[in-house]
């Protein structure tokens, strides 16, 4: 970039500024180049391309056939599963978020004091999170099956299967997700809890607050930044659910458990083979996600003031 920056008199060069500025910028860019190449080639360009695809006729096999805006968006919104998948995704997101945050906080409160036993518990809560979502889904696929499951006799006698009805499938999948992710949210909650100074609890105790009052009036308000972070993470993750439903329920029974991301995959690669419409749904999802996250952050911030 610059070849200038003549060596300054050594007295002027402070300890922290030993390198001339131009050379420093050049070196900085040199070290940041791999990052920049990856971000541009595999993130920025695809992001622009998906917008272009969303306004173009773009079949899977023949590629770009020219602009057709706004056909793809019309087709996307009118897709026979579009509304159902949006409603189902929101339903699942609310259920998963409420359960995961409540359980994450509950587990964190349960094991927050450091002891051998609690460390053991924390590890056992966390182990499922080391598994991949696909592996966990496959595990529960067998666990929920009417043939191989250890719970098969129970299912037999009750005349019920875990994935047999729309609601059962939703709850069974949510259980899998809670099992897989509760430990993760527990750790985030533990970090938040450790950030609350001990003397606040002292003060609450000396004022004669009950344990429930302390939790309501001290712990929860002071935990707000952590709750904001975990809510955003959990809502984002749940809105983009794919593997668990793809593997566990395949969208069934009766197409009742199709999520939005699954719909994108179906439109792009299963039968319809229309990348343009898939890109249109992707753009809608992206816009919705940015909007929802912005709203959440604003809600948490305005509560604060």
């Amino acid at each position, binding site marked *: 970039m610059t070849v200038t920056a003549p060596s300054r008199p050594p007295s002027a060069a402070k300890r*922290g500024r*030993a390198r001339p*500025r131009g050379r*420093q*910028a050049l070196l*900085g860019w040199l*070290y*940041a180049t*791999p*990052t920049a190449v*990856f*971000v541009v080639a*595999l*993130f920025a360009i*695809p*992001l622009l391309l*998906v917008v272009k695809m969303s306004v173009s006729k773009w079949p899977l096999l023949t590629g770009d056939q020219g602009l057709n805006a706004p056909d793809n968006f019309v087709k996307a919104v009118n897709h026979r599963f579009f509304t159902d998948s949006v409603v189902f995704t929101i339903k699942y997101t609310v259920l998963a978020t409420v359960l995961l945050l409540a359980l994450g906080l509950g587990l964190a*409160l*349960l*094991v927050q004091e*450091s*002891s051998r036993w609690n460390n053991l*518990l924390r590890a056992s809560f*966390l182990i*499922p999170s*080391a*598994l*991949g*979502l*696909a*592996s966990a889904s*496959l*595990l*529960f*696929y*067998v*666990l929920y099956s009417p*043939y*191989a499951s250890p719970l098969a006799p129970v299912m037999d006698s009750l005349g019920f299967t875990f994935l047999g009805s729309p609601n059962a499938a939703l709850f069974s999948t949510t259980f899998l997700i809670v*099992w897989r992710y*509760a430990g*993760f949210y527990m*750790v*985030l909650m533990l970090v938040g*809890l*450790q950030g*609350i100074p*001990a003397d606040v*609890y002292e003060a609450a105790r000396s004022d004669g607050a009950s*344990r429930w009052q302390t*939790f309501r009036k001290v*712990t929860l308000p002071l935990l707000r*930044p952590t709750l*904001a*972070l975990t809510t955003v993470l959990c809502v984002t993750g749940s809105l983009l659910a*794919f593997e668990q439903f793809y*593997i566990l329920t395949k969208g069934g029974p009766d197409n009742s458990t199709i999520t939005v991301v699954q719909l*994108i*995959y179906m439109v792009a690669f299963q039968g319809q083979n229309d990348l343009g419409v898939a890109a249109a749904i992707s753009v809608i999802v*992206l816009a919705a996600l940015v909007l929802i996250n912005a709203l959440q952050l604003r809600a948490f911030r305005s509560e604060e003031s």
Partner: protein
Amino acid sequence: MAIESRSTPTTADGPPSSSPGASAGSKRSDGVTIAGIALRTPYWVFTGAVGLIFLAPLVWTAVASVSPLAGTNQVDGWGFGNYETLSAYQAGIWRYLGNSAFVSLLTVALTLTISFLGGYAFARFKFPGKNILFLVTLAILMVPYATLLIPLYVLLNQVGLQNSLVGVALVLTMFQLPFSTFLMRISFEAVPRQLDEAAMVDGCSSFGALWRVLLPAVKPGLITVGLFAFLAAWNDFMAPLILINDTERMTLPLAVSNLRGQVQGVVDYGATEAGVVVLALPCIVLFLLLQRHYVRGFMSGALKG
């Protein structure tokens, strides 16, 4: 419920210092008295049961994969019949293990190299565009997986990386960059500047200082980054699902998922269990070995918020 059991003994004779917020080190003495044990027992039973819920599915799968079940390759007696089915499936488990190992190791190597250099650049240098590049890197987190995979499928086709494990590794590396760049940046920022400046005064080039002085100092950060990159790549399902369509080149999660319902729609649950065990084992071993680094990775994510 959970809040109750957290600090049961404080009501009995706990010293006032034991507040719920304080964690490490504040060991109480009532664990050894008989009254203390009696008070603690319900807590142990309850938490132990919760811990078991998290461990049971894993243990059950491991046991079931070697136990007899009709409709599998392990009909009577215990043994490794299911693993034999798995090893004979299509291109063979060794091929799929090899593919997964290749993708995972390439992703780890790329992620470590890029975030090591990038973290150094962001932590130690001033250069034009630095903040924008960092923000754009973090923005990868905001964009849904599916939104990027659709255009990436098209782009990789154009550059001849269709159906390629290298292409999958490149994509997975990009998805790792927000976390790894962030973590390496704070790792470098935690190292006092005097360390590398002293090395440079002694005649090291900036790369020499990075390699000989800073590399050992940021090693824990690198271990965390590498661990997360490995777990993410080993377990990833959606990227290979979309980017790979050749059975020879599938990764293990995809192969195990496809293995279900091969024989005329009859699911081989035994082989699926064996597949889950093979998938989960490396993750659980790594988790147990590197638990501290694993938890630290989560915590740095939480501190960001």
